[in-house]
């Protein structure tokens, strides 16, 4: 499983088709992966477990999300005003 995820990360080109978000508007795809990355990070850091799997979410959101959104959400998280549940 760990080799799979490593392989997947090495062979990464761009975010693959996600059947949860089949339509043209990919906003939710970006939003969900951004949330999943930071939620995953929070949970795995607390447990002290290897955090390689969460890199997948990071790669996906970095591929999909407009940079301005990432910057806005990052500064909201710093200020404590991020509206999503982390």
């Amino acid at each position, binding site marked *: 499983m760990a080799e799979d995820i490593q392989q997947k990360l090495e062979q990464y080109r761009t975010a693959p088709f996600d059947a949860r978000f089949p339509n043209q508007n990919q906003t*939710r795809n970006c939003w969900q992966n951004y949330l999943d990355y930071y939620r995953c990070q929070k949970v795995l850091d607390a447990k002290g477990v290897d955090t390689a799997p969460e890199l997948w979410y990071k790669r996906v959101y970095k591929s999909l999300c407009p940079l301005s959104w990432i910057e806005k959400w990052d500064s909201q998280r710093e200020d404590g005003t991020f509206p*999503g549940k982390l």
Partner: protein
Amino acid sequence: MAHQAHAYHMVDPSPWPLTGAIAALLMTSGLAIWFHFHSTMLMTLGLVLTLLTMYQWWRDIIREGTFQGHHTPPVQKGLRYGMILFITSEVFFFLGFFWAFYHSSLAPTPELGGCWPPTGIIPLDPFEVPLLNTAVLLASGVTVTWAHHSIMEGERKQTIQSLALTILLGFYFTALQAMEYYEAPFTIADGVYGSTFFVATGFHGLHVIIGSTFLAVCLLRQIQYHFTSEHHFGFEAAAWYWHFVDVVWLFLYVSIYWWGS
């Protein structure tokens, strides 16, 4: 002497449509003047003219129908169609606001936190005052039906009592809503939640006030012996309008207060 050979009502020339149109113009342009030049004079003038037009126009209709006998069965049928069409148009008016609410709440955007209610919004508890309001309006639906049956059975005292009770329940609803508005932890400026909540419930409240006024006019007319057990369309129109207001509240309650929390 020429008499009409038909049962319809050819209305005498009247100035009220013109004053009504002028009033509408003054109110709308007055609104724009208020927004840009901080003066409420034109708008207030328009409002006063509107109220005068409404008072005099409807007074004339009452004179034509109740005192001069122009409201024959075909004429009354036309008035019924008119009221039904008007209420239907109001249904579509509210449908728009429900559309807006569901558009924003079924697929909440990231700006809201991807959830409904949005992050940071504390919605009102649907099982507190809103539930009481539901009970009040449902009860008022019962009392207005009681009033109708009393009219049809020629029971003068019961009609007056049940109609007065209906109006009191309407006032109670308005007072409770006003208190809720004052005490609410969110305002109309609080994102799309605040906008959809206060515009939808606000227009509903305005319709409750209009409906209560209509019923109050019916009460005054009832006291002055205008209605007969066979012919009391003014009251029926008010009762239809009141039931419509009640139904809109039920949809508001289930959608915005209950599901939306």
